[in-house]
């Protein structure tokens, strides 16, 4: 069962990811990205990260992507034109990517020690309680810092966006 789920949602996420890259209109890319997020949430569940899966859907899918879609519509971003000035990226990009994937594949398959198989339900540590406990004991400092980071981000966004309205 897990295998089937994995395969389906892996393929979905890959297709959506391709879509993000290949679509011309930003809206289509945004919607495909939502699809990626969703499939990834399922994959997280398979890996036993319940809290994170929920967080993924809520934060990414519900907030970040909504923000993206809002901005696209606000800016009335249209389809991309086909001019290209950056020849270097065009030419060097593809080989680099292939090299990257190959390198990763080699490292994962060859260098890494034996990896266990994934069985749904085999790891049940990803509960909210567990994460919360860790968050407030061992990772307290990063947690607080992150809070301040969000605060700064909010302030920044407000300031930047505000100038526009004037």
């Amino acid at each position, binding site marked *: 069962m897990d*295998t*089937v789920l*994995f395969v389906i949602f*892996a393929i979905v*996420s*890959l297709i959506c*990811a391709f879509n*993000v*890259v290949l679509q011309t209109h*930003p809206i289509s*890319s*945004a919607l495909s*990205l939502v699809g*990626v*997020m969703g499939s990834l949430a399922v*994959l997280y569940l398979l*890996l036993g*990260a319940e*809290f*994170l899966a929920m967080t993924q859907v809520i*934060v*990414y899918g519900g*907030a970040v992507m909504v*923000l*993206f879609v809002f*901005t696209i519509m*606000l*800016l009335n*971003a249209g389809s*991309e*034109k086909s*001019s290209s*000035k*950056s020849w270097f*990226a065009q030419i060097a*990009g593809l080989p680099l*990517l292939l090299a*990257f*994937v190959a390198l*990763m*594949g080699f490292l*994962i398959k060859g260098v*890494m020690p034996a*990896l*266990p*198989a*994934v069985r749904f339900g085999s790891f049940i*540590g*990803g509960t909210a309680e567990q*994460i919360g406990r860790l968050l407030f004991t061992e990772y307290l400092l*990063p947690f607080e810092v*992150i809070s301040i*980071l*969000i605060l*700064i*981000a909010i302030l*920044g*966004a407000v300031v930047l*966006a505000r*100038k526009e309205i004037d």
Partner: protein
Amino acid sequence: MHISPVPLSWYLLLSALLFALGVAGFLYRKSIITVFMSIELMLNAVNLTFISFSYKLRQIDGHIYAFFVMVVAAAEAAVGLAIILTIFKNRGTLQIDEVDSMKL
């Protein structure tokens, strides 16, 4: 019918592919917003890696890191989009090729 379970390496490989796609989008797309979305894609791929390893190591530190990544991504999205709005306001364009006044 017994289907063998999925080894963890497939998750890692998927993550690598997603990351590569994210980079591809970053390199090949011209619109700033699309580039930004590719960045989000990359961050998600990394999250997947974190959680996979967390599964393997039977610890949830990986989840914590992924959590933090998400938070930062969210903050970054907010600020970044505000910046995009400003760029659009000042230069009237969303093509990153035209935002090159830092050229020597």
